[in-house]
């Protein structure tokens, strides 16, 4: 049995075992160990093995593995947007374990938890979707549409968002005026081209995630608000809510936030407190942040009731929460992660559409996708500060 075949077979067995046993169960761990052992052998021959799962074929490097024609797990992985899998030696065992856990979760239909999209070290395992352009297979390794020119740098906004987070962390106070001014300035940026465009930031370094994500969600939420023809005050309120939706993360201990490996149950519980903590921080404001607090609290709750936190009093999530939820997940998917490249805008939109009516409000998804496709050519990845042109 060839090493790639052996390895994929072991992966398939591990995935099948995972459907029977809970995480941490010895049987499950044994199957992961077996897959890891197969990978180790594979890496001895090929330090950078690469697999593609395309239309029922499993391609290893340039070679189609005929033994795995219509391999069940290949089809299933492809369906959950894992169409390419790359390894680079050495691969640590714990990293491989996390990878397998993530595969299991994706195959089980569990959505990407944007709260866990945290700072991490670079990974030796990369996986994600691919697209075929003009007959040429090309890995999708960019954060979205083409990077257009921009005449409105967001250095000041980013700096202010960073400062806001620091203020909340160190003084427990929330400088609301600065937050609102950032939103106003982002709104100005969105119209600096003469027609609406979305100055979305592309993550350059993982420790920028909180900041860039906050800015992007604010921009997306405002853009969607405008697309839905909401009033200017409401659009700005959506922008503020988008900017603040993950504010509770400032309460998460740094070592958990930057932990490279999988979370323990206790750590996951801490991570999942951020909607509650964010809501509390925002409710502490004297007035005017109720909507942002509601959104911070509800933005991980799915349409079908899944997600977290669980609401004690049964109710529908606020429309703004549903709106920000879509923007939040979309931006998270389009963001580089240590173990996978950012999804393309189109693939992320497809994912969001797939989850419409289950995780997301269908009407909002429809409007969001229409807007993103309509404006995708204007979607801009911001240059980093050093390279960014001054205003």
């Amino acid at each position, binding site marked *: 049995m060839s090493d790639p075949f052996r390895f994929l077979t072991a992966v398939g067995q591990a995935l099948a075992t995972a459907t029977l046993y809970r995480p941490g169960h010895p049987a499950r761990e044994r199957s992961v160990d077996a897959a890891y052992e197969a990978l180790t052998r594979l890496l001895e021959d090929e330090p950078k093995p690469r697999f593609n799962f395309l239309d029922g074929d499993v391609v290893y490097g340039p070679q189609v593995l005929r033994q795995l024609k219509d391999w069940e797990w290949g089809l299933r992985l492809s369906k959950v947007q894992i169409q390419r899998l790359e390894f680079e030696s050495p691969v640590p065992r714990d990293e491989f374990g996390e990878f397998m856990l993530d595969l299991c979760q994706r195959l089980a239909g569990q959505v990407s938890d944007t709260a866990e999209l945290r700072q991490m070290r670079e990974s030796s395992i990369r996986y994600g979707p691919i697209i075929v352009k003009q007959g040429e297979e090309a890995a999708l390794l960019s954060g979205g549409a083409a990077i257009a020119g921009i005449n409105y740098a967001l250095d000041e906004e980013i700096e202010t968002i960073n400062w806001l987070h620091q203020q909340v962390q160190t003084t427990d106070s929330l*400088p609301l005026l*600065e937050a609102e001014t950032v939103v106003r300035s982002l709104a100005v940026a969105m119209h600096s081209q003469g027609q609406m465009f979305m100055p979305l930031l592309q993550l350059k370094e993982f420790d920028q995630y909180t900041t860039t994500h906050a800015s992007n969600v604010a921009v997306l939420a405002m853009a969607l608000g405008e697309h839905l023809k909401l009033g200017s005050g*409401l659009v700005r309120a959506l922008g503020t809510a988008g900017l603040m939706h993950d504010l509770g993360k400032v309460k998460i201990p740094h070592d958990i936030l930057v932990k490279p490996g999988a979370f323990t149950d206790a750590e996951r519980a801490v991570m999942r407190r951020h909607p509650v903590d964010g809501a509390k921080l925002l*409710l502490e404001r*004297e*007035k005017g942040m109720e909507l942002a607090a*509601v959104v911070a609290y509800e933005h991980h709750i799915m349409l079908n009731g899944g997600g977290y936190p669980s609401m004690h009093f049964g109710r529908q999530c606020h429309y703004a929460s549903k709106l920000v939820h879509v923007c939040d997940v979309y931006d998270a998917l389009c963001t580089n992660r240590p173990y996978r490249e950012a999804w393309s805008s189109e693939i992320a939109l497809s994912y969001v559409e797939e989850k419409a009516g289950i995780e997301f409000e269908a009407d909002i998804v429809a409007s969001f996708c229409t807007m993103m496709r309509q404006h995708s050519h204007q979607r801009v990845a911001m240059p980093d500060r050093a390279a960014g042109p001054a*205003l």
Partner: protein
Amino acid sequence: MSRLPAADERTFLSRELSVFLVQLSIALHKHATYPPGHPSLVSALESVLDRLADLLKDREMLAIGISRQQLLIEGVATDPANPVLRELAQRLHRQQLGALRLLSGVEPDELGQVLTILSAESLTGSTPMGLRSAEELNRFPHVKLVPMAFDQLAIADEHSPPPETEGRGQELWLSLAAAALIGTGNPDDTVDPATVAREINRRPVNATYDRVIVTYLLELGRELKSAPEGPSAALVRQRVAVLLGELRPEVLNRLLETGADLSQRRQLLLDTAPVLPVRAVLELLRAANNANQQTISHSLLRILGKLAQNVEADGPSRIRAESALRDVVVQLVSGWTLTDPNPGGYTAVLDRLSRATGEAADRPDEEDPDESLRVVQLSVEVGFAGDSLWRAMDQMIDRLQTSNLIELLDMPPEGTAPAFIEACWTHLATPHCVRRLLLHEQQDPQGIDRLLNRMGMAAAEPMLEALEVADSRAVRRRLLTRLSALGPALGPLVIPRLTSAPWFVQRNMLALLGTLPELPADFSPLPFADHTDGRVRREAIKVMIRNPAQREDGIGRSLSDDDDQILRMGLSAVSEACPPSAVGRLMTLLNDKDRDPEVRALGIRALTGLKTASVKSWLLQHALTKPGWFRRARLCPRSPELVAILVVLASRWRDDPAVIPVLRMAEASADPDVRAAARGATV
């Protein structure tokens, strides 16, 4: 009108100027007091002329600005606490003059005429000088009387264009320029803002000078804010902007620090932020912020600077950027008056200013009633009690959703701190909430009961307040039921409300006392049993009848009362047990043929408890007609009284030989009510 800055310890009005102003004041006073030609007038005039001659030795002109309490002379304002100078300012201000200019060469006759005119009070009926024609104002060659074009200082430069064409803003600008350039002897340059700025930059530190400049800036700010758009306003805006841009930052800081207090700095920015060019607004903001010794975050200043750049770049988002910048500055500055300016409190200022924005009004949580419920649900779920929760709860109370609110508090998530729920109840269980619910009980009927049950005696006061003014019988009844359920402990709360209260309050409180199982020991309803208003008497007597110790007295009073309802109440009590002392009064009442038959019937039924021969005799006598010569006695015609008599006879004397024939006659009657009464049935 704001007060002009007075001379302080660093800058005094020169002695020569002070003495001159005092002499001028004396001369005016004398001209008002003495008739023309009086020797005192001559000496006063000479004194003024002498001082003026000294002053005009090194000046071509002496200009005196006039405000309500102060004079401004050579950039220095007089002390408003100085009674002589204040009186002089007031006198000239009453003449509606903005300024007085004295030129070299003034003659005694000329000044004498001026003093005579100015000393004449407008109270005498003469037209104030400031309102007279230009011809009259300009008739003196060496004394110029400048009308008051506005209620602040305005020393109009003779080179300035006429107000009709340039407007008040232009005048203010010229006045500012004149004040800034005072002593330079270069009035031609006064319209050039760069020149004015250079002069202000050049001046040594002088608090009074700074205050004068800032006073004009404040006035200009007000004027620019309210002036209609036009070339003149645009010109002034531009000049002020250039001035602010040309002032050295440290000079602008100093002007705002020494020339204005916090509220003035705030006002200046509020007035100018919407109208001045954005760069000038930022200059002012920085300076005012420094003067306030506050720290606007570096981040905020950077974004504001960026927005200003965007405005100046005049790109597609210029309008958005401009609006954002001006709004943010106004928001920021609005908070400055709300707290002490200290770095530690800056966050609190920012906190508050967020409330001052009108923007919140169009947020969904402000408008959608469901959002209040959502905020309460969220707050309970996260266990956060604060202003946002209280506001949402208040909105729910106002919208009569109290029962929903109580449901939430009754079913908190597991692990919710009892102190949190208690805090919520403390906020909810208030007199305001009870009052609100009582007023609109129909819309939220469950809410009030649940709230009252929860509150217990704490709800007594608001309910008593509601009862005091309840004019609906149904509302009163419900309140009485709920209040009486609180038991005897309520009594001491009720008694103080009786004294000196309007009749309806007394009525309601007595009604409440009547429902309590026992009365307070020190309370007697007797004083109210003689009340002129029958409604109060009725409740008082009702209380008396309920009380065994006062029952007999109460019945006696009720049977003697002219009020039909009180009488019926007494008769009803008598029918249960008639005290002996009431029998006489009762019989008198029964013999009164003018009484309402229904009342008499009620009285007859009350006789049921009195089985005496005299009562039987009275009943038989009133049941039968008098027998005639050829006629036997017959049953009286049917009436309420007859029916009542038959009922009493049938129930108490059915077997009495004297009664039997009467009952037989009745049983043979064609009237079913009469027959029924004879059988003892109550009809």
